[in-house]
Each structure stands twice: as C-alpha cells, then as structure tokens.
C-alpha cells in the first residue's frame, strides 16, 4: 500500500509516541530523504526498567521506495530488540531482497539469541512484518516476558 510523504511522517511520529507512552526514551524522529529518491528513518528507544549493564534498546529502521505520484511503499525494514539486562536479542529483518531470495528463497528473516552474541543459527526463516507497529509490539512482547525467547522453535535458514 502506498502512502504520501505526509502519511509516512505521521506514521513515524506515531511510532515514536507509541514507544514513549510505554515509558521509552525516544529522541525526536526525523524522516530522511535519500539520494536514491527513497525516504526512511531510524529510531532508537531506550526501554524503562533495569539499566544494568545498560537499558534494553529497541531500534526500528525502514526504507520506503518511491511509487510514483509522490507516494512511497515500505520496501525494507529492521526491527530489533537488544535486551541488555536479560542478555538476549530478537530481530525481524527484510533487506538485501535479491540476495536473500537467491540464497534462501525467502525475503524476510529473523534473528534470535537466547544469549546475546551467541546465536545458534545466523538467520531464521521469517514471515513478513506488515507494519512498524506489528514489529515493535512483537519485540515489546519479548521484552515483557521473562521466559525464553523460543529460538529453538524457529526454523533455521542455514
């Protein structure tokens, strides 16, 4: 679905407020324009709670391709939770589409580390995440659950 520049700016502002209202510390977001004609953004949110060794962080990055008539479509994303206090990581990615299609036969992939920096699989097969809100909520659900992330239940795309 294509969106106007103003709609993408509203969407980005909404993502930042969504995180802030959950208690996260999020700098003022900026919608960037790139030399390719694409637009995009990167936001980083420090989550509330334990800050030892440092706070849990959620990042969201998106790139939107021009679709004509001043409209854009979401083409690449990376939503990522690095939960430093719990020492684990979860991520949903879609990028380098031709390379992933050629090598894995899928576009979306995921990362899951029950112990930060010690993945048992480099890339897990993923399903597309349809919006930033869906990606962020899935990561927030992981952050709020003290149990295992469940990496062993995912399908390794090695």
């Amino acid at each position: 679905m294509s969106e106007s520049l103003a709609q993408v700016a509203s969407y980005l502002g909404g993502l930042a407020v969504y995180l802030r209202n959950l208690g996260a510390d999020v700098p003022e977001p900026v919608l960037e324009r790139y030399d390719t004609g694409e637009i995009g953004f990167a936001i980083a949110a420090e989550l509330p709670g334990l800050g030892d060794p440092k706070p849990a962080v959620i990042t969201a990055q998106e790139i939107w391709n021009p679709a004509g008539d001043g409209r854009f479509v979401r083409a690449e994303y990376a939503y990522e939770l690095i939960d430093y206090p719990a020492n684990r990581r979860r991520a949903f990615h879609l990028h380098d589409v031709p390379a992933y299609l050629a090598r894995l036969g899928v576009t979306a992939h995921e990362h899951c580390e029950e112990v930060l920096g010690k993945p048992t699989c480099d890339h897990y097969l993923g399903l597309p995440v349809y919006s930033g809100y869906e990606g962020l909520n899935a990561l927030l659900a992981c952050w709020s659950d003290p149990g295992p992330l469940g990496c062993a239940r995912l399908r390794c795309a090695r």
Partner: protein
Amino acid sequence: MQDKQFLSPNDVASELSVSASTVLRLIHEQRLPAIRVSERIYRIPVAAFEKYKAAALESPSPARVSPEIKERPSIGAGEPLPEAAEAGAAVRTA
C-alpha cells in the same frame, strides 16, 4: 508495585479501584498504553501506568521531514549474508 516492571490489567484495576473489564476497555480504546502479548494477555509497563496516572501521555504528531538529501543507509549493514545455496538445492519458501 515498586519492584515490578509490568502490571497486569488486574493490577491496574486494583490500583484504580475499577474493574478489570474497565481496564481492558481503556486498553482497547488506546487510552492506556499496553503491550499485547497474545489475544488475551496484556502487560502494562509501570512507567506507562505512571504516565497515564499523571495525564502525561502524548498525542501523536507527524515527524519532521529533513530538508537535506542524505546518502541512503544500508539496512543490515555488517550482517553476514547467508551461505549461497548449492546448485540444484531446493528453494525454500516461508
């Protein structure tokens, strides 16, 4: 409540002296921020509940659009690509 990082709808109901169904209505109406863990499970960060009680929740507003043109970043930069599939190997689908 001080030691907890997350509250259940029942915890919030108890704090506000309302029913759990009232708390769920506040969540569904997006008046009380909550994390949807599953269809029936919600968790409310204590920090979000404090904002709610202080009437400090923000309303969404559009992000600023940069007037500058920047170099396109590479999402996933530094992430090793998966090994190339062997010739003749079956293509996997998600």
